[in-house]
């Protein structure tokens, strides 16, 4: 559709302001010294920018520990998720065996069962497995993802069968075919899926909230929820903790932006 330039330009400017102001406001507020943060009238740009809030949040409130917990959970969970998705995706795209449709439907049916509706029974399962209050519970419970399996299955389908046949003729073992042929050829899909799963796990609140109780096992999201839930909110601390929590996913997005926005589309629209 054609839209006149003089109409579009102000609209784009307005959109930009509406969407860029909140994150910038968060960042600049966190950079202000305690005396300036509540100043009225407020100014966007900090007059005396300081890292004091960040240093204090990082060192005083055990935030470094929560940050490490989140890094641990997100990294291991993303890796586990992708490895299992590649395996299942390979099985469902390149093998024909009795029960193929059954397993595919079984995995896909899990798409319709969000965590939110099985809170109590999953709590009981994790308790019986002694995974409550453990970061391993947060890692294992959501590790198998139907979406991941579906994306890998779609991608691996595009790898020519002749390559696999040739390798089998040469007597290559099935495991070697998986790691030496399927995995290297699926790097784009694997990279996309890893990045997404990492972001997803990093931003997760509900799983950790359900599983973790002990303060030493908190993830950053749990720490943030606890701080915002206080009656008298310590805003300088809360805002700087929020900024720190956005750094990993923000950096990932800045460096892989194009790829994030297109890969996500492929996953979402095909699903």
């Amino acid at each position, binding site marked *: 559709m*054609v839209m006149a330039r003089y109409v579009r330009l102000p609209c784009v400017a307005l959109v*930009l302001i509406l969407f860029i102001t909140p994150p910038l406001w968060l960042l600049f507020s966190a950079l202000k010294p305690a005396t300036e943060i509540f100043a009225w009238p407020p100014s966007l740009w900090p007059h005396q920018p300081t890292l004091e809030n960040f240093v204090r949040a990082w060192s005083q409130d055990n935030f470094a520990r929560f940050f490490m917990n989140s890094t641990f959970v997100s990294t291991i969970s993303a890796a586990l998720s992708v490895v*299992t998705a590649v395996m299942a995706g390979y099985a469902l795209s390149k*093998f024909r*065996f009795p029960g*193929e449709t059954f397993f595919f439907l079984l995995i896909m049916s899990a798409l*319709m069962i969000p965590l939110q509706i099985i809170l109590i029974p999953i709590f009981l399962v994790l*308790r019986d*497995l002694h995974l409550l209050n453990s970061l391993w519970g947060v890692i294992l419970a959501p590790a198998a993802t139907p979406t991941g399996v579906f994306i890998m299955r779609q991608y691996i389908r595009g790898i020519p069968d002749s390559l696999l046949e040739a390798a089998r003729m040469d007597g290559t073992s099935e495991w070697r075919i998986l790691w030496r042929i399927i995995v290297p050829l699926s790097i784009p899909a694997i990279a996309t899926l890893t990045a997404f799963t990492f972001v997803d796990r990093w931003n*997760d609140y509900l799983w950790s909230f359900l599983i973790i109780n002990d303060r030493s096992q908190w993830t950053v999201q749990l720490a943030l929820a606890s701080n915002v839930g206080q009656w008298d909110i310590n805003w300088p601390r809360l805002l700087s903790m929020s900024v720190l929590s956005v750094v990993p996913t923000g950096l990932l997005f800045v460096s892989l932006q194009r790829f994030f926005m297109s890969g996500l589309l492929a996953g979402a629209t095909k699903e």
Partner: protein
Amino acid sequence: MTATLPSATDIPPASVSSPAGWIARVRQGGFAYLLLLPTVGMLTIFTLYPLLQGLFMAFYKRGVVVAERVPSSWPKFVGLDNFATLARDPEFLATLLKTIGFVVVAVPLLTVTSLALALLLKPVFRSVGFVRAVVFFPKMVSLLIIGIIWKWMFGYNSGVVNYALSLIDIAPVPWIEHDVMAQIAVVVVWVWANAGFYMMILIAGLGAIPDDLYEAAAIDAATPWRAFVRITLPLLKPTLALVVLLSSVEAFKVYELVVSLTAGGPGRSTVYLIQLIYETAFTKPNQAGVAAAQSLVLFVMLLVLSVAQLRFQKGRA
């Protein structure tokens, strides 16, 4: 989706009829079963089994944790009592209505916003990539943090939103201190947080509409509005339906945003279903069965949406 899948029926009849052939096929598929084991195992333990247990639980009166020394927590079969309790529970009914209301208001608003953004940012112009990335960025941030950012900006006395309003002589608005305003604030922030994601889906949908249709419309001297109503909307219908269905499921599950933005308040005005289920299960004694029944009601609503989506996508394929 499933139509293109090679299924067991594709196997030549000869191998199906003889048991030996079937065993051979199972053996041949041995490696595939091994590959599927981790995924199927974890999904069974952490999703499918809990779902079944949840279904049973809805027909029992029990505590979340059944303690041997606490007889009142022991599971007792009560039939449909939990559902009868829900049908008479004013808080559940009010929360259910409020959640449906949230979906009914937020989803259309999100769809229209995403469509407007997509139409605005679909054409390629200088730095369009940057603008799209900025609009998409909230999707990379947890809803909990989105709630924190907006709670900070919505402050009554020191928030930047009320400051901006004061510049154009509008009195301070009690964004999160007033019950109806708080509900509006949750809708606005939810739409703000999700619009970029659905915008990208709609941009892809717009990209699939052939350009020559618009060229033909231009030759016929059709107004841009007419071209939009006659070409864009009808051809975008499948993508729009996808956006509505996907976002409805998300809207029903609204919770994390509320945790930080309003904490369910003021009063109980922004408590939605997920929070109620959690509170019923974990803060009220021996109400796990009632909470499971509440979950089941939500599950049925989500299932209807999922089935609608599947049918719809099958129809499109």
